[in-house]
């Protein structure tokens, strides 16, 4: 794997661990599958038995993989830690020695600007507190194609630089053409400034990372020259809908266990999750410029989920990719509601299914092939599960007198084992909270227990809903229907019943029909499948429930980040409030302001190049645009026409003067009254 030498200690360790890990999974899956298969009624034909056993084996394998990861994780947290890549969070903060600065990248696309800039300011302040701010520079990399957003970003950047007293450390660049979306945005940065920075930290629009975490990441990269990427564990924070708080709680109570477990069998071949990560710039530039997949198939075109692929390509080139499993101080926001989560999943599903083509590429390390497959399975497994349930239903209907899963000792053992694998890992969360004395931060023992019960209940009900949606996504994508990779909804809540009916109604009706069929045809099977049927039938109220705003004062779903928030989270709240109150956020239409307000006009003029050779055809089109704008006002031109004007210094200069020279009525109606 490594370019530099033969056998490296972590690789031997990784190999041993993976043999043990996958052997345990194979044993569990084999046992479960044998028990199920051996106890199926003899009346059932071979084909039916195959259709029952094979999907079950696939699904059980992934269940066992999750469980074994949790087991590995609880081991690492209590007895492990020898193969860490970054310094322990409790150890003294290292002093960086690098002369070159690390770039912190913030790729944005029509985002909530106040949130983004407040986050950046908070990270800046957190770094200042470490005394090592001089080792970092920030780049806001905008792909925004809404004229108002662009102007607001510029104004907010200027305001932010003044607030923190820095012009040399926070940079702003807007890309005119959004080639290859986020991955193209980052690669554009590499082309322009990659040589200046040995490392880059890639953030998402809603990311927060403490100065402590950033310093430790840079230190880890400095000490480990073979490392190409270090991913941090992501902790979700910041929203108050029931769904989001549930996610935040689950993430906090079980997340450390799963991150540790993943680290245990990944070691130097970790996945990359797209943000809150540090990357060796030259390695990325040399190996991670993504190709376009062949068009024509359902999975062709630009690679949407770039992160998994980039990690695989780095690994292919001999670079190590690690997960800093116990690093604190790396945050993101969850989707606010179940529906927002599903919309995000629609995009991710398409991106992950594309990885089927990458799995078969030359040189991709085997573990990364497996991880890419895992990403695919996170969606395909829903279709398999649905198919399996349909098979069970068909058997129930065609063999109404048959008890498909009789209560034999083996089936009882299978049931116990399945429930154990599904739910036992939750006790690890409680054990960790007791060991680390953080039970009070989860609402005390009562709060913690009720939160676990509630999230178990909610996840049992939402799992069938996800199954239906994911199955639909997979079918749509394989039929060639594209997902639009637009701006993510990052705030929200407050779904109305009409919307919930529209989004979830088809699932409720399906569940109702399914339940009635089973109740009539085979009441015993109905009983076994009742948890799934219940989730489907109640999907509409469930969707509403997940969007309900909750009070942070309730004991339900409390987390340490709410009870004892880190400095950066407190700073963020203050910065966000201040940013919202900034005039550049409240101005109704910045396009009008730039054209009318001389200072705003002058400021914007300093951001754009002076174009000298404008073709005649373009010049005539632009004259027509100017004429229409002056005669009919700003509402007569489209967003793309606004962008054209905002990017053309000559047009802007002409318009600025001519707007001020308009007749009184026109001037007030179209311009001054809207300022």
């Amino acid at each position, binding site marked *: 794997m490594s370019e530099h030498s033969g056998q490296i200690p972590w690789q031997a360790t990784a190999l041993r661990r993976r043999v043990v890990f996958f052997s345990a999974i194979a044993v569990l899956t084999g046992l479960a599958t044998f028990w199920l298969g051996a106890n199926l009624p003899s009346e059932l034909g071979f084909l039916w038995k195959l259709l029952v056993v094979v999907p079950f084996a696939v699904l059980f394998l992934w269940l066992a993989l999750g469980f074994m990861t949790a087991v590995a994780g609880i081991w690492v947290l209590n007895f492990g830690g020898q193969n860490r890549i970054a310094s322990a969070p409790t150890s003294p903060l290292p002093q960086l020695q690098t002369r070159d600065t690390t770039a912190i990248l913030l790729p944005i696309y029509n985002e909530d600007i106040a949130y983004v800039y407040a986050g950046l300011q908070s990270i800046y302040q957190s770094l200042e507190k470490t005394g090592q701010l001089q080792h970092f520079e920030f780049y806001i990399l905008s792909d925004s194609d809404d004229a108002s957003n662009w102007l607001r970003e510029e104004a907010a950047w200027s305001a932010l630089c003044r607030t923190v007293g820095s012009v040399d450390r926070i940079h*702003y660049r807007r890309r005119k053409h959004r080639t290859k979306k986020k991955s193209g945005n980052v690669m554009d940065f*590499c082309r322009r400034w990659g040589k200046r920075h040995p490392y880059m930290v890639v953030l998402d629009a809603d990311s927060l990372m403490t100065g402590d975490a950033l310093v430790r990441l840079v230190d880890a990269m400095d000490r480990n020259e073979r490392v190409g990427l270090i991913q941090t564990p992501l902790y979700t924070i910041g929203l108050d809908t029931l769904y989001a708080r549930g996610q935040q709680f689950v993430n906090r109570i079980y997340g450390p266990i799963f991150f540790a477990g993943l680290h245990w069998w990944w070691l130097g071949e970790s996945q990359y999750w797209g943000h809150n990560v540090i990357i060796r710039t030259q390695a990325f530039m040399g*190996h991670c410029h993504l190709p376009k*997949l062949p068009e024509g198939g359902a999975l062709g075109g630009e690679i949407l989920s770039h992160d998994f692929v980039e990690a695989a390509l780095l690994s292919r080139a001999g670079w190590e990719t690690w997960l800093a499993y116990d690093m604190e101080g790396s945050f993101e926001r969850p989707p606010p509601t179940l529906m927002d989560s599903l919309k995000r999943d629609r995009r991710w599903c398409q991106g992950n299914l594309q990885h089927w083509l990458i799995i078969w590429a030359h040189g991709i390390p085997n573990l990364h092939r497996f991880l890419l497959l895992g990403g695919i399975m996170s969606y395909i497994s829903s279709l398999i599960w649905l198919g399996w349930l349909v098979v069970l239903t068909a058997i129930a209907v065609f063999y109404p007198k048959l008890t498909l899963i009789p209560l034999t000792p083996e089936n009882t053992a299978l049931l116990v084992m399945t429930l154990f694998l599904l739910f036992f890992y939750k006790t690890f969360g409680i054990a960790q909270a007791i060991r680390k004395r953080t039970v009070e931060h989860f609402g005390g023992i009562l709060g913690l227990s009720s939160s676990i019960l509630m999230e178990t209940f909610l996840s049992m009900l939402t799992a069938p809903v996800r199954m239906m949606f994911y199955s639909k996504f997979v079918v749509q994508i394989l039929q060639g229907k594209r997902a639009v990779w637009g701006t993510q909804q990052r705030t929200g809540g407050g779904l109305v019943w009409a919307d919930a009916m529209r989004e979830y109604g088809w699932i409720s009706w399906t569940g109702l029909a399914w339940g009635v069929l089973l109740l009539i045809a085979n009441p015993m099977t109905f009983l076994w499948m009742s948890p799934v049927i219940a989730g489907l039938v109640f999907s509409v109220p469930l969707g509403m429930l997940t969007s309900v705003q909750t009070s942070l004062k309730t004991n339900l779903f409390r987390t340490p980040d709410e009870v004892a928030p880190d400095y950066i989270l407190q700073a963020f709240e203050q910065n966000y409030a201040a940013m919202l109150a900034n005039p550049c956020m409240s101005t109704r239409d910045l396009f009008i302001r730039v054209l009318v307000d001389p200072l705003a006009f002058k400021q914007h003029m*300093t951001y754009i190049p002076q174009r000298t050779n404008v073709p005649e055809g373009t010049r005539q089109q632009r004259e027509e645009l100017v004429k229409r704008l002056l005669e009919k006002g700003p509402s007569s031109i489209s967003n793309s026409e606004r962008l054209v004007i905002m990017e053309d210094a000559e047009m802007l200069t002409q318009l600025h003067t001519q707007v001020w020279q308009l007749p009184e009525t026109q001037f007030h109606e179209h311009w001054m009254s809207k300022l």
Partner: protein
Amino acid sequence: MTEQLAQTASSHPTLDSSTSMNTWELAKKRANAYLKLHRLPETEREQLLTRITSKLARAGLFGEQELIQLFISTAQAEVALLQAQAKADSSPQKAAQPTHSVTDEQDGKADNRTQTGPRFERSSIRVAPLQAITLLPSSRPRQRLITK
């Protein structure tokens, strides 16, 4: 431009005095609104407006549109003059402000652009090859994934 417009005044017919007074006030109000948006100190703004008004008082009577144009173009010229004077008088060290690079609005020059980022140090980057492997013999030719 202001002088040229003013010199053609004599060829225009005389307007009703109350209408011309309203037009004059309207144009002056427009110029005042323009100057206000420059956030100048009150006294400075009033002085500028007085200067503009007295300059244009010599120009005869115009219609509303021409008068507004005159007032605005004169105001722009006066503000530009004021800023040029202020620049010439200011200390050599510029304050560290991201908006310090103010472009002359009538003659925007590329070298006055605000630097919102460091100088480029361009690199060329090649696309990663992704060539498919063939596991089993197939009647289809081996597919090579496209790279740019």
